[in-house]
């Protein structure tokens, strides 16, 4: 990780809603490195947008410090901060053309006219809007408006670019295309991106690191793989992708692997240092589980048997819901790589197996 582009130290934000004090952000500490693609991920009302607006300067923290490039900018007006924002609804200037929209920031900074023309032209090329410069925002499609908003912010070469759910208004296909595009542009310009989203797929695909937020605080912070594979709380496990949560008590520990049993031959293996007798919550991702109708031979695996409750075909995979002795129904994703037929139908007795490293203890209670 390079130098810190953005630092939040003990940042706190309270709002008064109908005379009641609401804590939108609670004592947040956060460091975003130079050139990083950083995502703030969480459900609506988790404080992610407020956090971003405090970085931009639209909200002043109730307490704590915001630093950009090591400089304290707490209390500095938005137009004096060297960060730019891409708004959820784009917020393009409706009375200006695409070109004038993009040139707006440079004109305010009194950049020379020739330089403005050059940089705006280059930026419109980067976002694939060549030749659209004379169009008014309402003459552009949603995707094109999105690109203008992006170009309008990026052309200023800010210290960091703040994006507030920028793809939310686009349809699925365009959204996926823009995800790739955003990542490409970020690599090309090398600017720090702070990306606010409630879409875990978006965050996983694009980010270098993700902060999962809940109720104004960071629940887990790390690279996408760590967040997905090793969720530290039940909330993260449930919010990012689909997860099976199995509750149990450690019966014994063999070689750093805890054994949870649910009947004869029914066991879940978890790599943990927890002592025997500890209650565990274990997260298992649905695609890690193998489903078969024959009794498997493996011994070093978690093994549960159960009855298929539901089968849903999803094209790339088939999703099974299985009732087992281990508590709530488990979901299993089976890639449709080999089989043209379903492995089992509702009511069939099946066996589920997965390697110990795919059981992740999320909370020791």
């Amino acid at each position, binding site marked *: 990780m390079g130098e810190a582009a953005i630092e939040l130290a003990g940042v706190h934000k309270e709002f008064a809603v109908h005379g009641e004090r609401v804590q939108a952000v609670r004592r947040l500490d956060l460091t975003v490195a130079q050139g990083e693609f950083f995502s703030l991920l969480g459900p609506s009302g988790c404080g992610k947008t407020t956090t971003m607006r405090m970085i*931009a300067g639209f909200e002043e923290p109730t307490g704590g410090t915001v630093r950009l490039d090591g400089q304290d900018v707490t209390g500095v007006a938005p*137009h004096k901060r060297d960060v730019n924002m891409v708004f959820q*609804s784009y917020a*393009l200037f*409706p009375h200006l053309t695409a070109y004038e929209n993009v040139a*707006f920031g440079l004109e305010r900074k009194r950049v020379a006219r020739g330089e403005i023309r050059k940089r705006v032209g280059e930026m419109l090329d980067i976002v694939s809007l060549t030749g659209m410069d004379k169009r008014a925002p309402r003459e552009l499609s949603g995707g094109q408006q999105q690109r203008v908003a992006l170009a309008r*912010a990026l052309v200023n070469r800010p210290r960091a670019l703040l994006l507030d759910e920028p793809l939310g208004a686009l349809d699925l296909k365009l959204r996926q295309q823009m995800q790739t595009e955003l990542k490409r542009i970020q690599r090309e310009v090398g600017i720090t991106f702070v990306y606010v989203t409630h879409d875990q797929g978006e965050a996983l695909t694009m980010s270098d690191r993700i902060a999962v937020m809940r109720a104004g605080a960071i629940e887990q912070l790390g690279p996408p793989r760590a967040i997905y594979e090793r969720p530290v709380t039940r909330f993260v496990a449930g919010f990012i992708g689909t997860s099976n949560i199995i509750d149990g008590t450690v019966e014994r520990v063999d070689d750093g692997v805890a054994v949870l049993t649910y009947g004869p031959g029914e066991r879940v293996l978890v790599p943990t240092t927890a002592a025997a007798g500890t209650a565990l919550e274990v997260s298992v991702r649905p695609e890690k589980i193998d489903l078969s109708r024959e009794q498997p031979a493996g011994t070093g695996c978690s093994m549960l048997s159960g009855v298929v409750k539901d089968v849903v075909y999803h094209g790339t995979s088939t999703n099974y819901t299985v009732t087992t002795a281990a508590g709530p129904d488990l979901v299993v994703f089976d890639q449709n790589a080999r089989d043209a037929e379903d492995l089992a139908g509702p009511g069939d007795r099946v066996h589920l197996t997965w390697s110990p490293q795919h059981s992740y203890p999320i909370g020791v209670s």
Partner: protein
Amino acid sequence: MRRRLTPYLLVLPGGLWLLLFFVVPMVTMLSLSLQEGDIVSGYVFTGHWQTYADVLVNYRVQLVRSLVYGAIATVVLIVAAFPVAYWIAFHGGRRKASYLFLLLLPFFVSFVLRTISWRYVLTDEGILLGPLKDAGLLPDDFHILGTPTAVILGLVYNFLPFMVLPIYVALERIDPRVVEAARDLYAGPVVAFRKVVLPLALPGVFAGVLMTFVPASSDYVNSAVLGSSSTAMIGQVIQSQYLTSSNYPAASALSFTLMAVLLIGVFAYARALGTEDVMKVAAR
């Protein structure tokens, strides 16, 4: 067949109404303005265009005065109405509708009555000037009533909502995020207002000017109630020509002259402002 007729049927009631109460009187008045004669022996159509030249010469002062008063009142209205509209649109919160209602509340009282009540406010020893004179802040012979100032103030007061409402509507439609975007792109509060809020509010100002300048210029109540003979406006002249002198041709010719001047003025204004662009923004 029925589907094709429907739009015409919808237009019929209003169309007939306009034909009866707008087109017919207009044509009658045009004919009247070209007649000669007097109230006793009656008027005869003679195609006498000379009346137009005569009234222009005789009442040029009042005509020009009306346009000047109307223009000054309109400018004062823009300055007075914009902050009110701005405040209601951006800081009115959940009470926007209540504030707009308050603004319109005086208009439930008759126009003439309201203007007459202004006499009590502006009169020499009235509630406004009396205490100021007693306190020695104004000389004893200071007066407002009967001056152009009183007439223009009356016009401003009476037409305020017609300027506030269109500007409010234009401001209300501005996405606050657009203003934030300007702030984010290095524009201070003043520049953001000048570069974003003002241009987007312009269609509202344009509509407000149309709705106030035309009636203010042809108003005959404010000058009659708050002014004096030296503030006489063209509306008063027309009124007295019709009702006092019964000189119908002169009154009609004056009315048409006023209408022509206002229409030309409005079109010139629209051209100068580039209505095309203004309307395009408004139609977004």
